[in-house]
């Protein structure tokens, strides 16, 4: 009985460590894929995002937001997100292969 209780307690710890099955960064970044392609791999003129360096993605989004970097559409998107969300999305996108 003790063994079972220990197992239950262990799995409870695992569950509480993972508050969500889907990480917030991944859920936020999933919206990007409708333009940038599944897994962040684009066909055609729109750039791919998969595997870009995290710092580069965050800097690009900040520069789109401030206007430092000119863009066709990305300035409109970047203005809608926070710095914290940039970091979450960039972390997920940078890990895509």
């Amino acid at each position: 009985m003790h063994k079972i209780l220990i197992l239950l307690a262990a799995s409870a710890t695992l569950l509480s460590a993972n508050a969500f099955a889907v990480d917030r960064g991944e859920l936020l970044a999933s919206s990007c894929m409708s333009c940038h392609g599944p897994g962040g791999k684009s066909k055609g003129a729109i750039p791919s995002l998969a595997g870009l360096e995290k710092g580069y993605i965050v800097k690009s989004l900040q520069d789109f937001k401030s206007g430092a970097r000119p863009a066709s559409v990305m300035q409109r998107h970047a203005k809608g997100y926070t710095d914290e969300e940039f970091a979450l999305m960039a972390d997920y996108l940078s890990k895509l292969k």
Partner: protein
Amino acid sequence: MSITRRDFLKVSGMGAASALLAGCAGMGASGAKPKVVVVGAGYGGATCAKYLRKWGPNIEVTLIEPNDKFVSCPRSNLVIGGLRNMDYLTHGYDNLAKHGIKMVKDMVVAIDPAKRTVTTKGGHTFGYDRLVLAPGIDVRTDTVKGFQEAEAASKVVHAWKAGPQTALLRKQLESMADGGVFVMGIPGTPYRCPPGPYERISLVANYLKKHKPKSKIIVLDSNPDIVSKKPLFTWAWNTFYPGMVEYRGTNAVTGVDGNRMVVSTEFDDIKADVMNVVPRQRAGELCAMAGVRNDAGGNWCTVNFTSFESTAVPNVHIIGDSISAALPKSGHMATNHAKVCAAAIVELLAGRQPEAAPVFANTCYSDTSDTTGGHVANVYRYSAEKKAYVDAGGGGATPQGDELNHAYAESWAQNIWAEVLS
């Protein structure tokens, strides 16, 4: 040795039982895998099924769709304008199977939310823990006098669902003589694809200018003014098609006569050579079947926006054009609903609460000629206080078209089709 209820309660003292018990509940009473049935394999439904499997690999996902193939409504104006063919819009569902989605080609004819079952025309019944409805729109051809008769005689089309009417409208334009009149009727908001009618007018004008330059386009808009991307379309019509487009706001089409080829408003009867009238719309019939077409007018479905679960019927989720929301009804938005809904269902089946503050972006490209296009883009953020998605600010539309947006529009199409179907 079995675990007694008392032992379980001891564990609950450690703060774990709620998650564990709920986890068991999510597995269903029989201990079987949780079952999600998705009805409708368009932009919303196919994406939802795919992401349910990606994020909830233990979930059994069944996707029910009556059509053999996916035919894209976005980009169908290029077919009507003679710039692409139907094959360009038409895509198979074969790649969805690799995600472990059980694809069923059949039509749902009954939904029983109490028993949690859906039944198909083919006589099969599917049980569900969660049901996702993504039927798209029901076009109210009954609200325009004479429409159904004229439609049956192939004298009028709406072509607001891509398919045979898209091809027929193209054929009618090809058959029209130079100097002919193309009449387009636009419904009041909300309707599917706010900029769609104005893109269609632009691409029909692009064709007529090249091949039948004496022709004319009369636009009868139920709305007082151009609903979406007004500067962009006004720029395009003045720059490329001067004198060809006659726009009349607050001119709702009230009737059509297929024998006389006349489109009527409350002010005029207008003689037409090609009649393209788009009637107003409501959520697909499946939603009525499930008892979720529950907004004040009985036209759209009200949902909880963190899960897209119906506010009227538990365990039934609605995504895409059918929901009641201050959001544009677009294929692109349907893919966003689908992802938030899929993530929420995964959490709910595990006994947890969905993400409390979803954020997503809409991007909508419109072509304005065979070489130019523009876009509108906005970010929407869920507000718990308002219980709605609110515009996060900073969005907007291009005031003029250009070649870069024209190229991005094509790339967008290829990427979203891959995102939905591969």
